[in-house]
Each structure stands twice: as structure tokens, then as C-alpha cells.
């Protein structure tokens, strides 16, 4: 069985099993590549969501390249941690993280939402190796993770379970059913992460149906609540550490983020929730991210 953890310097390819435990500096660099992937694959597909994937990019990278104990070469490795994005629409970052971590070739990203590719518009276990449970209808993921956490408890397995949620998604009642369940059963192997970018499709979350005070809500549902700057890798790692150390309660991390973060003209603009950059916009975005479509798409096609 592969080792549970390994020193960062062992790792040259992302195909190794276990926790990568990358440091903040290295994660910051990888998050930049993830953002380049997101823009590039969206530019190629000309369909898909830009805003959420970019706000998830930093903590998503920390999750995959530091925190998770996984073996992308063996997605069903029995000792794996379980990760799940309840916000199925952020497939651009899900697939980018998976490809960069080694679940499948980078070139697959260039067939995002394509008829002849596996990278469906919303995560499909039937199509993509490493996706364990399909998603796309909001509010269901935390419940799925509660089931995985209960299975681990029944099996006395040390597996940790990570669930990424959206802030608009908090409006779905099922989230609170799952919250109540996990609080009741004190599922401390469960860690929820909320992409608190303050935007959803129709505008600002607080204008649509306000979710504040969000920390109070989770606390009232008997969860351990942590907050972090969702774009500061060091702060994100600190939150992960605290979550891992907390016993007797599930932990939720409110990751304060900015929708569209990393691309000037997308940042903090809800209108970028669900649309891809046009080719010329993508070029500008990729310049801001220190590359070009030609360069980065070539990297992906070769990968």
C-alpha cells in the first residue's frame, strides 16, 4: 500500500499517493497554473462557469496538493480520503485539479463539455475516473459526505471527508438537514468548505436571500466553525490544520473569496458566474495570468 504522506521534495509527478503536503509557496504557484487551466479550457469549450472555479482555485489547490490523502493513479485506493464538490457547476476547477494531480491527462481538459470527451458539464461518476458521486443539483453533496463519513465510522476507518459548498447553495434546505445530521452524530471526520464569494447567479447573495450570519448558523447546528482568507494559502493551511485537529464535531471552513479572482475583469462580478470568456477575453485573462492561450493550450494538449 502506498505511503500515507511524503515529503514535498519526493514528489516530482503528481501521480504519487498520499498527502503531498506542499507548502504555501508551492501551492501559490500551482494555483496560478490551475487558473490558467480554467481559463484555457473554458476558452476552448466556449461554454461553462468562470466565476466559481476561480474563487475556489486557491483552497482547491491546497486541498488537492496539501491536504488530501489520495492516489490519483488508483482512484479507489481503499485508504483514500473522500472529496466531493457539492457545487457541480465548478467542473473547470474540479477537472483542472484532477488532471494536475494525475487522475487523467491534461489534454482531457481541452474536451471540456465536448460530446466526445469525458469531462461533462457537471461531474459524472459514469464518465470521469475519480469522480465518485455525480453532482449538479445543488444542496445534495454534504448529505453524500455524511453517508461517506458514517461508512468510515462503521468501518472504523480513519478516512477524512471534504465537501466543497457554495454560499448561494446555503439557501438549499437539504444543506441544513445534513448540517443537523452531522452535528448530531458529531462527525469529526467531516470537513465542509464554503466558497464564500458573496455572489450567485442573479447577483449578491445578501440581495437574493441573505445567508448572514453564516457562522452563527453553522454554530447553532453544532459545528466547529473556522474562517479563512480563501486566497491566502498560508491561512488556508492553518484552517485545514485546525479542522484536522478538532474532535467531537464536524468542522466547516468559511473560505472568504472573490468570485472570478485572478482575472481583473471577472473579479467580484456575478455576471461571470456561468459564462466562459470569449477568445479575446481569454487572451487578456491569460496575459494577466502570465501566459497566452497558445502557450497554455499547448501545455495542456501535450500533457
Amino acid at each position: 500500500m502506498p505511503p500515507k504522506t511524503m515529503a514535498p521534495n519526493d514528489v516530482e509527478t503528481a501521480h504519487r499517493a498520499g498527502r503531498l503536503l506542499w507548502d504555501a509557496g508551492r501551492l501559490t504557484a500551482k494555483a496560478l497554473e490551475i487558473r490558467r487551466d480554467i481559463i484555457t479550457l473554458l476558452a476552448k469549450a466556449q461554454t461553462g462557469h468562470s466565476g466559481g472555479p476561480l474563487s475556489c482555485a486557491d483552497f482547491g489547490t491546497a486541498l488537492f496538493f496539501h491536504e488530501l490523502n489520495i492516489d490519483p493513479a488508483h482512484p479507489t485506493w481503499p485508504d483514500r480520503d473522500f472529496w466531493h464538490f457539492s457545487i457541480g457547476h465548478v467542473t473547470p476547477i474540479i477537472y483542472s485539479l484532477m488532471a494536475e494531480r494525475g487522475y487523467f491527462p491534461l489534454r482531457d481538459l481541452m474536451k471540456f463539455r465536448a460530446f466526445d470527451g469525458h469531462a461533462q458539464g457537471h461531474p459524472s461518476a459514469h464518465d470521469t475516473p475519480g469522480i465518485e458521486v455525480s453532482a449538479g443539483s445543488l444542496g445534495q453533496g454534504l448529505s453524500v459526505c455524511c453517508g461517506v463519513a458514517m461508512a468510515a465510522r462503521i468501518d472504523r476507518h480513519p478516512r477524512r471527508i471534504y465537501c466543497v459548498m457554495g454560499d448561494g447553495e446555503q439557501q438549499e434546505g437539504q444543506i441544513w438537514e445534513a448540517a443537523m445530521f452531522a452535528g448530531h452524530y458529531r462527525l469529526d471526520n467531516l470537513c465542509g468548505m464554503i466558497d464564500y464569494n458573496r455572489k450567485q447567479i442573479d447577483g449578491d447573495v445578501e440581495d437574493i436571500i441573505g445567508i448572514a450570519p453564516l457562522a452563527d448558523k453553522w454554530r447553532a447546528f453544532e459545528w466547529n466553525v473556522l474562517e479563512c482568507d480563501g486566497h491566502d494559502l498560508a491561512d488556508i493551511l492553518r484552517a485545514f490544520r485546525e479542522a484536522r485537529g478538532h474532535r467531537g464535531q464536524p468542522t466547516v471552513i468559511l473560505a472568504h473569496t472573490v468570485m472570478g479572482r485572478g482575472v481583473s475583469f471577472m473579479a467580484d462580478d456575478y455576471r461571470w458566474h456561468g459564462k466562459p470568456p470569449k477568445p479575446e477575453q481569454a487572451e487578456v485573462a491569460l496575459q494577466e495570468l502570465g501566459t497566452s492561450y497558445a502557450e497554455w493550450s499547448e501545455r495542456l494538449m501535450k500533457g
Partner: protein
Amino acid sequence: MTPMTSTISLPPQVEMKKTREGFGRALVDLGERDPRIVVLVGDLSESTMVSFFAERFPERFIQVGIAEQNMMCIAAGLAAMGKIPFLATYGAFASCRAADQMRVTVAYTNLNVKIGGAHGGISVGPDGATHQAMEEISIVRSIPNMSMIVPCDYWETYKATIAAAKHAGPVYLRFGREDVPVVTSEDTPFTFGKGEVFAEGRDLTIIACGVMVYEALRAREALAERGITARVIDLHTLKPLDQALIERCARETGAIVTAEEHQVNGGLGGAVAEVVVRSHPVPMEFVAVMDRFGQSGKPAELMDAFGLRATDVVAAAERVLKRKSGR
């Protein structure tokens, strides 16, 4: 009494037993054999009879409370980790309250989740319309990857539950609330995905599921007295559908009556009609709930009032035979 062979023959006095008890007992036996079996319930342990399992295997029993959406997805998570979860609630909530979760998380992922929907049908009685689930067949049949079984009595529910555990993939089990006639025995054959020929006949075929199988068998006796021989099919598996058997019955008997304790739109009758028109069109009549909500009352009163009795099956048989003979 009837010239045709019959694998099932009813004594004048038939033993009565709850189908849901077959579910509860089977879960315990499954639990003994297979550690992967886990049972979830939404605050209805007694009435779904998963309480038997809860007592025997507390560590594999999960009380979810009144949160059916959550329960459906928790079962999905358990299945994703290799467990074989059975969830239990009333059919109205299993099929409707958690429909989106059944479609997206369970069925689209094709997870090994078993859904126990209790209190199906008008025979639920005094609780009234909200608790009388009669849309499950239409809903579940429309969702890809789902399988569905509507057993006819205690023993068949027991076997259906065992079969559901064996089948890889999501299965919806529908059962009722009341004591219903035990028409099969411990060793009556049961094959998932196949209809059972309970009685032979030449003039028409009665295809039934659930408690209506008993009414169909009684109707067959009444018809036999008038020299009419009706074949009786117990079509316990609604999905996948035994298309070959249905087509054969259409060809061999030339007329079909379906009988179900379910809404007429998209139920057993609709499922059979879809096969018949595509293979061998013959006249059909439907005995079902005619697109109306239920109401409170004693189960027997309601079965009478909603036209779900052997006499209603007989009347439908006579109508369909008239049409068959072109009169």
C-alpha cells in the same frame, strides 16, 4: 373448477399478513449474511418495520430523522463506500420528497441504494390522500438506471428484498400498510425482472402487481364460472419490464386487463400498453385509481369505492372481451 393449470390456488380462507413485514424480516436475514447491509430510516422505524433490523444490528442502523432528501443522499454516500444501504420511509416521501436526490445522486451515479417505500396505495386507509402513495411507478420508471419491484404479498416482499440486495444498482421497493392475503408461499419461484404466470388461461390475460394480484386471482375464479379462462400474471418487477412475457400474453390471449393500486397515468397499465402497442396491439382495460387523490376511510371501503376489487377486474375483463370479439 377451471380447466387451466394454476400454480397458485387460493383456499377460501387466505392467511393475511403485511407486505412491509416481509421487508422488515428480510432485512434482518440479509444483515446476518452480509455485513455491508446498512439500514436508514426517517423517523418511521415501526411502520416500515426496520425496527427488527435496528434491534438486531444497532451499529448498522442509521436514524436520519425527518429528512428524506438527506436520507437519500446519505444512502448514496454509504453505497459509494461499498455498503448496501436500504432506506425506509413512506412511499409518498421516498418517491416525491427525495425525487431529485434519487434522480441525480443515486440513479445518475448508478449507486447501489435500495429504497423501501412503505404505505403505497389507497389501502393505506384512514391517513388519507397525502399518505396514500400512488405515483411511485410513474416517477421511478421514468428515471434511468432505476429498478422497481411491487411485490404482491408477504413472501414475495421478503424475496423481493433479498433480490434487491443481490441486484447491483438502485432499486425501489413498494409495499403497503395493511394485512393482505398471502397468495404465494415460501417456495413460490421469484425471479427479479421476470413476471410470474400464476394461472394459465386462453381468453385474456390479467396482469397485476401488489395486492391486486389477489384480486386478479379471485376474478379469475369468477370468470371461470362463466367459462372464461383468464391467465393471471404477477408482474412484480415494473422495471426492468418483462417485455417478452407481455408480448407473449398479447399474442396468445389477444386481450389484457391490468390491475394496480396506483394512478392510471404511467403506472403498470401504461407500462404494459407501451409494450403492447410496440409489439402486438390488442385491446386493454385498466383497473387502477383513475387520476384522483385518495381519501380517508377503512381500507376495504376504499378498495371498493376506488374500484380495485375482483369484481372490477371481472367487469374490465368483460369489457375487454367484448372489444376483442369486436362486439
